[in-house]
């Protein structure tokens, strides 16, 4: 895979993660369990959409075909998306949303820390900006996971169910492929497998405080970041997200 094509793919992965997860989080708007959470969720979605603009903007430049961040967000079909399967999973209840957020944020923070030292200055620049937000996100989502895991019997049970459901989507974040190999070789991004020890240390500590049990087994879903096989959820998400651009092609908004 040529270096430029690999970088394009890598940037799509970063940008599609924040785009799709940001979209999911934004679905909560007006429906959260407490007003403060409504505000916090909107804030998280806003940060993620802002990061999307940067990652997909750079992806478009690297691709060199004149596609903007909006073009990439609004005019690709599901199979051309490169987000982790975790990001596209449905919101479920508030616990499932916050568990998904924590499992993502914990990875995102570490990934952005490494990318802030990227050999590619543009990547490093975006990562440094996003990192501040990601640090705040993970602090918040970890607190919520702990609060609900170590809350009532019901909240504990719901958080454990959320963890059981979502844990099989964690492995994909650390599974390297040829795009990652190219990124490692050019010094742009770390080998994803190298992030796992830090991730496990952080996540297991938080889940411990939350009195939650990591499910047994090593099974991990895959196919999102490579785009080979997303879940059925992504296509439905896109019908909403891309509606206006698809229905009124070429209009300016």
């Amino acid at each position: 895979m040529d270096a430029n094509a690999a970088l394009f793919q890598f940037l799509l992965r970063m940008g599609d993660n924040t785009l799709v997860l940001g979209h999911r989080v934004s679905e909560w708007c007006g429906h959260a369990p407490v007003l403060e959470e409504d505000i916090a969720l909107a804030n998280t979605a806003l940060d993620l959409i802002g990061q999307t603009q940067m990652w997909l903007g750079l992806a478009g430049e690297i691709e060199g075909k004149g596609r903007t961040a909006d073009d990439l967000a609004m005019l690709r079909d599901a199979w051309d998306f490169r987000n982790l399967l975790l990001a596209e999973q449905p919101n479920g209840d508030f616990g499932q949303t916050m568990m998904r957020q924590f499992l993502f944020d914990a990875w995102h923070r570490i990934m952005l820390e490494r990318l802030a030292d990227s050999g590619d200055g543009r990547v490093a620049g975006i990562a440094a900006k996003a990192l501040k937000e990601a640090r705040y996100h993970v602090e918040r989502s970890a607190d919520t996971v702990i609060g609900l895991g170590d809350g009532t019997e019901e909240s504990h049970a719901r958080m454990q169910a959320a963890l059981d459901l979502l844990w099989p989507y964690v492995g994909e974040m650390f599974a390297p492929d040829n795009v990652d190999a190219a990124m490692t070789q050019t010094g742009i991004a770390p080998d994803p497998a190298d992030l796992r020890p830090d991730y496990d240390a952080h996540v297991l500590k938080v889940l411990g405080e939350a009195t939650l049990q990591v499910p047994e087994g090593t099974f991990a879903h895959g196919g999102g970041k490579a785009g080979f096989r997303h879940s059925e959820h992504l296509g439905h998400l896109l019908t909403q997200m891309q509606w206006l651009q698809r229905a009124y092609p070429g209009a300016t908004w």
Partner: protein
Amino acid sequence: SPEARAFQARIDAGEKIEPKDWMPEGYRKTLIRQIGQHAHSEIVGQLPEGNWITRAPTLERKAILLAKVQDEAGHGLYLYCAAETLGVSRDDLTRDLLSGKMKYSSIFNYPTLTWADMGAVGWLVDGAAIMNQVPLQRTSYGPYSRAMIRICKEESFHQRQGYDIMMKMAGGTAEQKRMAQDALDRFWYPSLMMFGPSDKDSVHSAQSMAWKIKMNTNDELRQKFVDQTVPQAEYLGLTVPDPDLTWNEDKGGYDFSEPDWSEFFEVIKGNGPCNTERLAARNAAWDDGKWVRDGLLAHAQKRAARKVAAE
């Protein structure tokens, strides 16, 4: 009573009333109702705009809309805090909203049907809200006045963003222009209703104005809104859906048709296009969120207990 006379004198002198000051029960009750309704309007007002967040046409528009809806939730928070200084809890107010006992602005019972509605809501609905709120920055109750000052700053920003969407739509493709006109057609009269019934039918007004809880009459504000908005519509190349709209040189303002007040009273009664859905959405959020609130509270108590035990 002497206290009531002293209270009125302070108000007349332009002093602010603060939470610990003596105040007549009617003043307190009227303020609780007014601030509570305003807070509820911010909360319910998230829904019609939230309806388009997942369909925003660009990343930039999605970000702007998210920020706006986040601001509205924030306004709700300030206002509930202001109401709490009057001795009513946010949970009590929320329960009164959810049971239908307290109202919120009737405008949010209208649906948002196209992207142009995001423009119309910002331009017209926030525009009308500001018209109501700017004078309230000088209201007699301190915490309410301070909340209004913060809110007005953000609202005028929202209104500009809404107008910007309308500009893009009105200057866009034929379909976009049609969307913009359609949005104006649907939101014009409901926006006029936002100022409340005509002065001759408005209850509570005189006392509220004496207390400086209400600063202008409904009809004054409505006239001001029409006078401000009509040239903006003309600038957009859109037609205000009122065949009788004419400039009245003598009064230096527009003559315009009254909204259909029977529709207004129906909406207030619960018979608007979206009343049922809006309340159902808020009730579902509250009911589905119970385990979350309970869980977080239980954890906070456990943590506090552990801290005490460790000391």
